[in-house]
């Protein structure tokens, strides 16, 4: 198999004595769209900064295109091939939108003028207005317009659709899908919006307090996670409260609800062996996985 575009091994970053990133192993294949999820402060942005070589890891290693981002020369080489949209969306404040676009595109020989025009038409950006006076949503659009037409080999997008309305978000997702379909662009993006991750990602990583909580192909996760709900005649038997091998169990009077990853049959059988009246197995959404994973860890 081809070398992964992004690979990290036991990547750690400690600020003073707080571990922001606490041992992350990631592997992102070429041509994939990898969704990177986690609540605020979980270590997403710190991880992304290490991938870009903007922050040095405390230990472990990160490689992008096989290069070390925090090495001076290799970092330059890696960043040349990356299009980045960050949370701060910092751009030069004093010039106009139009000049900002011309200035940026001049650095990239493969700049896709057609996509630039398509985005301009959709985004409705005021070309003559100075960047400083743009609203938050306009800034988000400008940041995307400066990153997507580069024909970068890798797009690292930190909350790219933050501040965009649903219609524009769908346009942006469509462009990302088209870029990935070319087979040349790999996309690694973080988002709070689980539905958009579910829509376009094929791989997902959920990070919680600096560690990977869930990692895998989205389809596999949806295939292997199930919610089992069992109803009993009387109270849920106490022996069942620990049945799921550490998976979150909710019991409420006569109803037991378990989120399981691959242990469906065992749980169903156990529930029946304790005379459950009915047992229901239902597929789960990424949102349920996301919420439950955080909760287990917090307990």
């Amino acid at each position: 198999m081809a070398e992964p575009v992004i690979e990290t091994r036991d990547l750690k970053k400690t600020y003073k004595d707080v571990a922001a990133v606490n041992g992350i192993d990631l592997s992102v294949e070429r041509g994939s769209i990898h969704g990177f999820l986690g609540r605020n402060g979980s270590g997403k942005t710190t991880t992304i900064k290490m991938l870009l070589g903007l922050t040095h890891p405390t230990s472990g290693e990160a490689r992008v295109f096989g290069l070390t981002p925090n090495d001076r020369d290799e970092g330059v080489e890696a960043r040349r091939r990356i299009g980045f949209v960050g949370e701060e969306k910092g751009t030069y404040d004093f010039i106009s939108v139009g000049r900002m676009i011309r200035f940026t595109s001049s650095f990239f020989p493969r700049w896709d003028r057609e996509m630039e025009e398509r985005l301009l038409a959709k985004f409705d950006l005021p070309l003559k207005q100075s960047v400083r006076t743009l609203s938050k949503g306009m800034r988000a659009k400008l940041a995307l317009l400066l990153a997507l037409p580069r024909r970068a080999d890798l797009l690292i997008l930190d909350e790219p659709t933050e501040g965009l309305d649903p219609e524009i978000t769908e346009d942006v997702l469509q462009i990302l899908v088209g870029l990935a379909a070319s087979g040349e662009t790999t996309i690694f993006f973080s988002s709070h919006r689980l539905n958009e991750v579910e829509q376009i990602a094929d791989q997902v990583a959920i990070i919680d307090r600096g560690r990977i909580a869930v990692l895998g192909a989205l389809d596999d996760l949806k295939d292997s996670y199930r919610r089992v709900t069992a109803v009993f005649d009387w109270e849920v038997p106490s022996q069942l409260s620990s049945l799921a091998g550490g998976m979150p169990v909710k019991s409420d009077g006569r109803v037991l609800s378990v989120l399981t990853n691959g242990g469906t049959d065992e749980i169903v059988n156990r529930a029946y062996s304790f005379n459950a009246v009915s047992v229901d197995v239902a597929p789960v959404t990424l949102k349920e996985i996301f919420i439950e994973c955080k909760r287990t860890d917090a307990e």
Partner: protein
Amino acid sequence: MLIKPNPSSGTPIYVQLMEQIKHAIETGALQPGEQLPGIRKLAEDLVINPNTAAKVYRELEHEGVIELRQGAGAFVAERKGAVARADILRARPLVRSLLARLLQLGLGEDEIRRLFEAELTSTREESRTNSTRR
């Protein structure tokens, strides 16, 4: 022709799309020999992951529902594996008599629907596990 899948459903997008395409073939909306959109177009039109779009075609080919022709694209297969209208007509009385018996047993509409759904899900999962094992 195809409608956007619901990404927030527990059913994977590729499964939703496989069912949509099969349904379109069963109802005649898609005819044997008809060409399906390319992977890139499918991904862009529905705004889904291109690997997911490719998986839809791969799985449908595996089931004999479509044919992938090198360089030319995806085409609805000639009847093999697909259910024809005649088959659906033949299935109707079976369903009707089973339904009558279930109603006789005192089951409600919702319960019957749930039972069918549950059976379909487990059959589908069994066949999927079997095909991955192969």
